[in-house]
């Protein structure tokens, strides 16, 4: 496999945008082209577009060639759209990475995009039932908030996690989000304010939930040879894994307070890179709900199983703690445009490594970051690892 670097990253403002899907694609495209001024568009030979439900929210399919047209790219090697619901964006990075690593592509573009806010918001909400088993769980109203509410209830029941500990995740991510000008929400919050916000699905309130968001994010990936010509600050893709534990429907999920698929995915990644959880400096994790981040601390091995609540309460996931988790504000602050989120996580790590983020959320000295993206009702877990150093040059397993 060839070494593959991220040589450019660009993002749009996330939020309730008065902008269409195609506008968002062009904004993110321009942002990434501006980020790599040495790049001649003609050098881009491949394009992967992460988009979860454009056929529902903008009634458009076959979106990859549409993006090529909007960005003026002639694709000669690999072009496709990726869809794995909430992790469609990371999937796009993964396939672009594989294409470059295999030698099929030399310069590949990744665009993650979702336009979720429309005049028909209850239709947007209704579309979310399709990510679970529509016929058997969707028909019971199983959208994301009630599912993650059940996870929270079981985690509180099984491990004694408290309501306040859930809220503390939002407090941390809101603090970092307040220093992120691209985030949908840039206001700090308190534990009380989270708990007193509008009830969505008990125990989860509105501030426990990531939002319905419009946004796009784009990357340029290149082979080592091309990367040298394009940037002085390449960020290397050093590994990636995915895991689904046979599960899509409730009957296959087992105990809701354990995410066995994530535990297995993390173990695979750590073995692949010969690292331990302690080696990770930055973890962008999928905090679609506050409870998600607590389970992720545990299943990624940052703390013992059941102690995720204590981990946030002790401040271990803040910058300066055991591992900096979601220093960009996470999904809770940025919002969650499904196809853009996984790409936004990579963008954050690139900006951190380059030192191009405000000092209040800068993780100094970081050299290894992971991005965990989950999809659907946490049935499928995706992790990628990014580093300032090439895999062969990093002394992992310290």
């Amino acid at each position, binding site marked *: 496999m060839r070494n593959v670097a991220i040589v450019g990253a660009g993002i749009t403002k996330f939020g309730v945008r008065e902008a269409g899907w195609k506008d968002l694609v062009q904004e993110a495209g321009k942002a990434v082209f501006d980020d790599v001024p040495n790049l001649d568009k003609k050098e881009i030979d491949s394009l992967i577009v992460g988009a979860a439900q454009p056929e*529902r929210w903008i009634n458009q399919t076959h979106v990859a060639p549409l993006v090529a047209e909007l960005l003026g790219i002639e694709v000669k090697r690999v072009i496709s759209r990726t869809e794995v619901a909430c992790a469609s964006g990371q999937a796009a990075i993964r396939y672009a990475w594989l294409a470059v690593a295999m030698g099929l592509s030399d310069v590949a573009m990744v665009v993650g995009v979702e336009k979720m806010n429309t005049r028909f918001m*209850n*239709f947007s*909400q*209704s579309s*979310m*039932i399709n990510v679970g*088993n*529509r*016929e*058997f*769980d*969707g*028909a*019971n*109203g*199983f*959208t994301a*908030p*009630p599912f993650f*509410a*059940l996870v929270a*209830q*079981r985690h509180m*029941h099984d491990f004694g996690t408290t309501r306040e500990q859930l809220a503390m995740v939002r407090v941390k991510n809101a603090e970092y989000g307040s220093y992120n000008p691209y985030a949908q929400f840039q206001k700090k919050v308190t534990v009380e304010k989270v708990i007193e916000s*509008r*009830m*969505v*699905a*008990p*125990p*989860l309130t*509105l501030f426990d939930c990531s939002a319905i968001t419009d946004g796009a994010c784009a990357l340029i990936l290149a082979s080592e040879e091309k990367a040298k010509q394009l940037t002085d600050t390449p960020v290397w893709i050093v590994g990636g894994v995915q895991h689904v534990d*046979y599960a899509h*429907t*409730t*009957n296959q*999920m*087992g105990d*809701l307070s354990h995410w066995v698929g994530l535990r297995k995915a993390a173990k695979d990644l750590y073995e692949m890179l010969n690292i331990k959880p302690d080696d990770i400096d930055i973890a962008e994790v999928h905090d679609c709900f506050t409870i998600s981040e607590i389970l992720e601390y545990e299943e990624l091995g940052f703390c013992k199983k059941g102690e995720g609540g204590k981990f946030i309460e002790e401040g271990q996931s803040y910058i300066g703690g055991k591992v900096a988790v979601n220093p960009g504000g996470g999904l809770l602050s940025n919002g969650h445009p499904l196809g853009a989120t996984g790409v936004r996580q990579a963008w954050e790590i690139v900006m951190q490594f380059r030192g191009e983020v405000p000092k209040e959320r800068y993780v100094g000295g970081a050299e290894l970051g992971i991005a965990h993206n989950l999809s659907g009702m946490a049935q499928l877990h995706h992790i990628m690892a990014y580093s300032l150093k090439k895999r062969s040059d990093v002394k992992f397993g310290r």
Partner: protein
Amino acid sequence: MARRVLELPDTVPLSPIIDLWDQQEPDGPDATGIYDFYRNLADGELTGQKCLSCGKLIFPPQIICPSCNSTELEWVKIPEEGELYAFTELKLGAPIIVENYAPFVIAVARFGNYPENGFQISGMMFDESYEELKIGDRITWDILEIKGPGDKKRYWYYFRKL
């Protein structure tokens, strides 16, 4: 010359993309291979399957056992009494077609000896509020009739506390 006008109908029939029970067709191009599951509901029984080859219990129903690939599956009744494993109440963001029934409880219940020899199934609850329930409550399933649009009649299930 008068401007040409293309007139659209005021209403269109219920779109299958917002209908939650759109996959229950016995025949025709939309036919499902597990239609007997819906026949069983109409006859008053919530059923899963047991693979006659490897013995694995299957839910939701399928036409081929995902463990051993056997097509010899038999219908088994889900035990009438189960345990409430987890629950919440959908207060915001209900799917359009059931908006009128929100807020309603969404629960996961375990029937039989799950996971070794039982089922874990999601279901709606309409008769109890969130505050009236606790983990471990004994619950049962019952048949829900889905009426409309027009004279269409389909079947589903819901949970209630015993």
